């Protein structure tokens, strides 16, 4: 099996390279430039320590494979992806799970990363423990950077217990009323008329909250999980046709991709200084731009 050092050799120290994960969000932020050499991060489980609630994997490991391993010990990670998505790919994109306000964001999931930098050398960001303020927080910077600052080779993630039960309920009501009646729903979607709520946790707590929401607002169990449109934009006070608002994140899911705001020039200057510092020759994932998607 390929390891981190093999990946390092493949990346090398010159020529543009792009790293391919599962390809599930390949065009997000722009396709890699034509002719750019494609590399794959190593996969495979390195170490799962259920009693620490941490897991270390090759960044190329598929999320579904990781989920299988973790679920055997009743654990999961706060990442969510399509069929074939890899751990490294999901971190590079950095979109949080719809359940983020209960389980944490994609950024808070990454504890340590061994990356191959633009100079072909390996650098380590973060640390292996669940709590750590040793030095600068490079992990959060790398998550969502679309591999433009460094390429994830091996990562340590925070795991968490899988909730005992999960229920979707929904119906016609005002979401702001619902918010006050449930303690920590995992997701609250609103399509302009109806709400859909994901409750998770201990069986009796979920049952009780579902019962309260039924008696107060007439919310019923949903036969199927809401299927969300592909694209994301930000809530601006109105919902596009067929769109859903995820209330706690302000993210709108609809058929239309949102137009990212142009960041102020001072922010862009800072971003450019970072890019230049980490990748002076702009060889890492050229063509992909984290400022081109929401």
């Amino acid at each position: 099996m390929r390891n981190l050092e093999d990946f390092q050799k493949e990346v090398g120290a010159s020529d543009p390279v792009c790293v391919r994960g599962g390809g599930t969000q390949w065009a997000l932020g722009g396709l890699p430039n034509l002719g750019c050499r494609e590399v794959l991060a190593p996969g495979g489980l390195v170490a799962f320590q259920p009693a620490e609630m941490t897991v270390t994997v090759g960044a190329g490991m598929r999320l579904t494979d990781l989920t299988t391993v973790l679920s055997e010990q009743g654990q999961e990670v706060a990442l969510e992806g399509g069929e074939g998505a890899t751990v490294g790919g999901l971190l590079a994109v950095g979109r949080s799970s719809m359940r983020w306000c209960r389980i944490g964001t994609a950024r808070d999931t990454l504890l340590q990363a061994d990356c191959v930098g633009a100079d072909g050398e390996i650098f380590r960001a973060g640390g292996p423990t669940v709590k750590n303020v040793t030095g600068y927080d490079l992990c959060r910077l790398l998550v969502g950077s679309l591999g433009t600052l460094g390429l994830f080779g091996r990562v340590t993630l925070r795991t968490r217990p899988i909730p005992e039960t999960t229920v979707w309920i929904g119906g016609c009501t005002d979401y702001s009323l619902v918010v006050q009646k449930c303690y920590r729903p995992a997701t609250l979607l609103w399509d302009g008329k109806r709400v859909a709520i994901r409750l998770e946790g201990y069986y009796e707590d979920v049952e009780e909250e579902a019962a309260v929401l039924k008696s107060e607002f007439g919310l019923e169990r949903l036969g199927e999980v809401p299927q969300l449109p592909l694209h994301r934009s930000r809530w601006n006070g109105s919902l596009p046709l067929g769109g859903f608002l995820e209330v706690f994140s302000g993210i709108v899911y609809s058929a239309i991709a949102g137009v990212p705001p142009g960041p102020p020039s001072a922010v862009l200057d800072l971003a450019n200084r970072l890019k230049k510092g980490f990748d002076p020759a702009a060889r890492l994932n050229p063509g992909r731009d984290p400022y081109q998607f929401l």
Partner: protein
Amino acid sequence: MLGKQKKSVDNLQSDLEAVVGVDFVHSGNAAKHLYSKDGSSIRGGQPGFVCLPASAEEVAACIKVAVKHDRAFVPRGAGTGLAGGAVPCDDPVVISTARMTKILEVDLDRRIAWVQPGVINLDLTRYLRGTGFHFAPDPSSQQSCTIGGNVANNSGGPHCLAYGVTSAHVAAVEVALPNGELVVLGEEQGDPFGYDLRGAFVGGEGTLGLATRIAVRLTRDPPIVQTLLLDFASVEEAAQTVSAVIAAGIVPAAMELMDQKVVQAVEPYARAGYPLDAAAVLIVELDGLLGGVSRETKKISEIARIHGTRSVRIAADKEERDRIWKGRKGAFGAIAKIKPSYYLHDTVIPRTRLAEVISGVTDIAEKHGLIVMNVFHAGDGNLHPLLVFDHREPGVMEAVYSAGEEIVRLSIEVGGVLSGEHGIGLEKRAFMPLLFSPNDLRAQRTLRDAFDPQGISNPHKVLPTGASCGDLQGLPEMPDGAWI
């Protein structure tokens, strides 16, 4: 030459005064002395000037003045930091946020509050009382420390076990960059757009600029809170209980360990009814909805019994709960009864190895003839060994430094890290190469340089520089309101 420098200093003072007013620029000996320290036992230089701006614009203007005069600046909150992060090096302009104490906006629908950096952590939670929300990070210094300081240090606290440290609770932050530009990093809602500059800034220990406005996420108050006090005949059994609780898939809101010396020192003050004959007590807090809290209480009680707990006490009401926490979070002046000086460490280790490391820490202290007291965030493996001693004893400081270094090395050996919540500051710069390769450190340097190409924001902190600013010293006495 001397005349020229004098003139430049005069100009710097008058330029700062032009920004914040003559009343809010200090350069007298008293101010220089006061602002030369923080909560640590590290002594470095003194500030050249101290200024107290009242707004983001004034902060940015102060930084521009410093840039113009080629002076470093040091951001400062309440000065409660424990790693020397606010100790000035290079005669800098110290920029204090003490006048920036406004809670600017609270939006309960979006669960966001915008605050100025000088707002005291606990003041925000007090302000929110009755709304059903609070600010989750709760460092033990929360009665004095500022939210701006929490952002700079990515502060933790007992309840960060379940809720995450400060970074998880900062949605956006307006920053006065080291070139004096004001930028907003992060988003009020949703994942940050583009590079997560917000995430990179949080925990930057004042070396990446100064937070001038902060959008913090607000957390729902839990409907049910249950606090358990578990009593053990050995520290090992208490530590094993912690590991076993996590291994059972339970993440309590907080899980704190105090050893016998700590319990005996704080009980007369807290009157929490801690068992004075226990070798260790665990405070475990569970919160959420009734079903989960009841089941976790039962499960943890069982685990504790398997590991030899002598008793499980459940706080009957808020008053009893508050007393239990008062002992944990409250004044540690009581420790001064044992020895007049102390040195507090902060490392993190894998939480499956608590028992062996605590025993190792005890051995290290004994070998050096020191007393060690343990009170720490056991649930996330965040150790706080407290070495107590009398600084007047000859050679004792050398023993304290040696023991401290051995504790750090032991933590790293078992797979831990240098700091869980106090940060690196001046204190642990030299230890950074124990954890990071030169290439790892270069990557961190790249981040720092992008924010601060001139290296004028809180210089010499965090990364090893070879500069000599900052020495550890034994504190002659326990300061009022010290915390751990």
